[in-house]
């Protein structure tokens, strides 16, 4: 058994070693591929695949409609939950909702972070306000909506969620997004004049 583990370890190490020493060959591959593909568009769409998954065997339109209806209902329930959580501090801003901040009686500002992640084992928020060290969100009633309220002085903040170890940089409730290290971070302004009170 021990010998077996040893063999597996050696095998893994050797295969990895071969790739690492030749990794320089992959330098700029993405650019070469992108250049070669420039102007070409694959046919079909992922949305088509999604439709196939939604109704892989259904023959009738009624079955498809039922699946779409149930999916819509799930989204509506989820939306209602989030809406319910946010309503005390939600501000409508030219049709675009934003939840930057709440101001306490003492004048201190804070931010509410919300992440719908049903079934997740852990959810945390990292950002420039906590030195990118995880601050955990909680879901005390197990409805899949994880939240944390963090006191923050007025300012512009970049952040992301970490859901079961995965970086989630596009918070639907953010004011905007920036590219960083090849993926996204969310941006939120806390303490805007005339908002969030």
């Amino acid at each position, binding site marked *: 058994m021990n010998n077996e583990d040893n063999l597996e370890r050696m095998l893994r190490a050797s295969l990895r070693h071969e790739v690492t020493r030749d990794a320089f060959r992959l330098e*700029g591959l*993405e*650019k070469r591929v*992108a250049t070669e593909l420039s102007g070409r568009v694959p046919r079909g769409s992922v949305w088509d695949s999604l439709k196939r998954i939604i109704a892989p065997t259904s023959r009738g339109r009624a079955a498809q409609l039922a699946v779409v209806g149930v999916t819509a209902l799930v989204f509506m329930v989820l939306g209602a939950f989030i809406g319910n959580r946010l309503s005390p501090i939600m501000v409508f801003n030219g049709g675009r909702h934003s939840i930057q901040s709440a101001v306490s009686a003492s004048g201190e*500002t804070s931010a509410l972070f919300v992440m719908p992640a049903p079934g997740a084992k852990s959810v945390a928020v*990292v950002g*420039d306000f906590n*030195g*990118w*060290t995880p601050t955990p969100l909680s879901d005390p009633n197990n409805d899949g909506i994880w939240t944390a309220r963090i006191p923050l*002085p*007025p*300012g*512009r903040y*970049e952040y992301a969620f970490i859901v079961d170890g995965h*970086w989630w940089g596009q918070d639907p409730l953010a004011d905007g997004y*920036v*590219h*960083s*290290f*090849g993926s996204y*971070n969310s941006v939120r*302004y*806390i*303490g*805007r*004049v005339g908002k969030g009170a």
Partner: protein
Amino acid sequence: MHIRSVAVALVAVAVTACLALGAVVTPNDVYHALDKIPLTHRAEIVHAFGVGFSLGRLVPDRTLRLVDRLAADKGTTADKEGILLTIANALENDLPVTLLIDKTEEGLARNVPLYVILNGSGGAVRILGLVQREKVLAAVRDLLYAKGIFCISHAGQATATSLPITRFDRIVTEVADVLCDYVESGASPLDGHLIYQRVQTRLENLSQLKQPTILPEDAALVLARIKPGDLTAVLLKVLG
């Protein structure tokens, strides 16, 4: 459940007490922490950090956290020293370093290899390293000087165009950050108007906060003197 609540409360009290009674982090703690990394340019780094602490550009507890994280990272000593030297170099060059520290911490949180944090990556998706970010900071600072906006020492008298170091640093940091974000989004440095628009949005947003992090008059001064072409020139200078 009740026992757990009591336990949590006790831990919270203990942590608060420790924080209240615990020693404040000093520059010396940072220098001791540097010993965990076998540095070949330790003296230079310590000297530059000393300048940073005295000007308020470095904060001991945050710097200590960075050094500790770097020491614990599995990257090479050369890359760790490269990151510290880039920050030290920026301080020696009279530049703010919060942007560099912040990007390093973010990179560490994302498990990005130290050499990418330091040198960036030039693939289809462009990632700016600390080295390029330091150049952007210097180019923005030089642009402000060229436009007659200066930084004064603590002792000097502030005027409309000579700003105290914290206000000046803040402008340099925010403008440089906008430029770096712009480059990483893959957009063209030649679109000066687009870059200017982003700088304008950022400065105006920050000047309209309840406690503005950039004063409205500083934002107005910078936006009046900088032209879109200047921002393109900065990026072309830095990116070659």
